[in-house]
């Protein structure tokens, strides 16, 4: 199938009211979900997932992608108006967004956040279209040893950069891998940790684990402290962003978008580091660097470009290699699997129409984001006023229905609650949940590729180092571990030295 054929096939899939409606509704849900303090883009995507079961694959996935895109932008609204980032990715937006709001320029800050988000989103989507196909054609040469090395590298980097400590990230990933061993053995079909329960023979349900880890801890956290996230909402003011101001910040927006694309295409880094890197680069290069942190519009633009630049790029490793770049793409990977699709290089051959349909949908999502975002900025007051004592019980009910609907199994609801408490303990002990979930998803793939490699080589471990591709990933893994350990040692020494000086 030529490029044009694939493009036309994709267009025929998405050129209908249903797809555009799903995309628009998705962006709206995402913006509202991201804008509600205490919820997040991840939670919004996870809670929307069960509603896609009844849809066609392309419509369902477009709905989720819309929620993802909307959620990342939505997080910037409370970041600017009430100094509470709606998503971790919006933390950098607070630095200049809230001081602008204090000066009565919230409307200007939100307008710039929207323009920067849409520009970065478009650049990120174009990068996805350009690079995913190329990477997928390269990945067609991968065998089990190459995939084993790639997944190991992905898990290492996710464990290393998701939290404050490599060791806590590693512990989280190991627990996720252990949880993934529950069920029948892949080769011999014998029981592993099933306790003789037939519900556990197929392993734990991914959606139950996912919603348990990312939605239930928020409910438990709200029960622990019902007054958290209460804040005073600033008014929008009468200042709106002008085209000249957008032009003045354009270089920072494009730079931030490319930073987002680069960091987003590496599995595990995510949007928050990208936003902070983009912000610090903009401050370093700006004429108004002294004004950063005091209410600089360019700071808002850079932070938002950094976090939205990641949104399309995280789909590059997912679509091309079958490795999710962050938690949200892990959920989207789950959606692919529920609809009988396996993301990875083969999808570019077997389901090229769906891939190109998604690309077209993603480009359109930037337009929807601009339109819906403009309305959401003005409507935030109503979203912020939703009483948390009503919202979170509703989320609890939504979780129960959503998890039950996957397999029509009440056992999964119990699994979700159990995982919710695991997730809450992880929050209390500052253990990142992302490595846990991604290891849970990639665990069977990692083990399967390892055992296939061993079968191919007659159990010689040398096959895991058989060529330049495996060496490349092993090298990256070593560099990542060394860099993270060095950074950890520096961070530990820093406070000791400073306390000695005092």
């Amino acid at each position, binding site marked *: 199938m030529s490029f044009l054929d694939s493009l036309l096939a994709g267009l025929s899939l998405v050129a209908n009211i249903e797809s555009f409606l799903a995309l628009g509704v998705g962006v709206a849900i995402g913006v509202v979900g991201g804008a509600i303090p205490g919820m997040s883009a991840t939670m919004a995507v996870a809670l929307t997932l069960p509603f896609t079961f009844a849809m066609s694959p392309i419509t369902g996935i477009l709905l989720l992608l819309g929620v993802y895109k909307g959620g990342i932008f939505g997080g910037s609204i409370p970041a600017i108006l009430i100094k509470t980032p709606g998503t971790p990715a919006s933390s950098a937006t607070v630095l200049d967004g809230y001081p602008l709001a204090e000066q009565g320029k919230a409307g200007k800050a939100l307008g710039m956040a929207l323009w920067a988000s849409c520009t970065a989103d478009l650049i990120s989507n174009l990068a996805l279209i350009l690079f995913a196909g190329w990477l997928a054609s390269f990945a067609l040469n991968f065998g089990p040893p190459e995939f084993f090395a790639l997944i190991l590298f992905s898990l290492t980097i996710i464990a290393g950069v998701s939290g404050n400590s490599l060791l806590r990230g590693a512990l989280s990933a190991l627990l996720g891998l252990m949880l993934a061993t529950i069920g029948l053995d892949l080769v011999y079909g014998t029981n*592993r940790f099933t306790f003789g329960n037939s519900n556990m023979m197929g392993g734990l349900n991914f959606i139950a684990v996912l919603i348990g880890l990312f939605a239930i801890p928020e409910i438990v956290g709200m*029960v622990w402290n019902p007054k958290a996230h209460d804040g005073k909402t600033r008014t929008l003011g009468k200042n709106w962003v002008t085209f000249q101001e957008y032009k003045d910040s354009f270089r920072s927006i494009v730079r931030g978008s490319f930073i987002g694309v680069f960091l987003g295409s590496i599995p595990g880094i995510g949007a928050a580091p990208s936003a902070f890197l983009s912000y610090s680069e903009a401050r370093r290069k700006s004429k108004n660097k002294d004004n950063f942190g005091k209410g600089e519009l360019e700071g808002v633009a850079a932070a938002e470009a950094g976090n939205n630049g990641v949104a399309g790029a995280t789909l590059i490793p997912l679509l091309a290699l079958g490795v999710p770049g962050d938690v949200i793409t892990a959920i989207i990977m789950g959606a692919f699997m529920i609809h009988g699709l396996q993301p990875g290089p083969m999808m570019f051959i077997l389901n090229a129409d769906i891939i190109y349909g998604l690309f077209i949908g993603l480009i359109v999502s930037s337009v929807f984001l601009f339109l819906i975002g403009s309305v959401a900025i003005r409507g935030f007051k109503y979203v912020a006023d939703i009483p948390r004592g009503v919202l979170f019980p509703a989320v609890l009910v939504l979780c129960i229905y959503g998890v039950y609907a996957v397999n029509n199994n009440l056992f999964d609801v119990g699994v979700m609650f159990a995982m919710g408490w695991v997730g809450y303990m992880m929050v209390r002990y500052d253990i990142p949940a992302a490595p846990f979930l991604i290891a849970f998803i990639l665990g069977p793939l990692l083990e399967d590729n390892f055992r296939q490699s061993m079968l191919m080589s007659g159990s010689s471990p040398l096959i895991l180092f058989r060529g330049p591709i495996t060496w490349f990933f092993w090298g990256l893994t070593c560099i990542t571990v060394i860099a993270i350990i060095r950074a950890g040692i520096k961070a530990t020494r820093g406070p000791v030295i400073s306390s000695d000086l005092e």
Partner: protein
Amino acid sequence: MSDRDIQLRLGFGALVASALFIFIAIPNLVSAPSNVRNIVLSPLFWPYAIAGFCGLTGVGLVAAGLRAPKPQTEPEPDVDDIPKAYLRLLGIAIIMLVTVYAMPRLGLVWTCMLAFTATALLVRTSHPITALVCAVVVPLVLYFFFAHVAGVAIPQGQFVRLP
């Protein structure tokens, strides 16, 4: 709790978990055929490898915890009344437990209505009437979506049945 205490607790927890897996859980709960010639292909290999790495991570966490400086001051608690916060946690745990056991008997819709109301009361919602209305409307709307649009067989329970 300081970062140092968290690190140490996690380290000891990981060591205990690793030992439990290696000496109790894996030998008793993972079965392997007796004719597997190579250990790396055995269903036991992967769980043992993960448990081993878990132990190593535990050692690392303990070592990092011991190296970390002792905090000068205790971090401030995130809630005003800690005993009440723990009581609320117990409350939500009971709600979850009762939900799981009530679903097959009462059905998903009625159980969810009760769970909604109980959770709203637990956090002492400032909008009790809205909460009560939502407690009835939200499960019903979700029931009609999943049962009649998505075609999911929602359990009805033994008492009141919905169309």
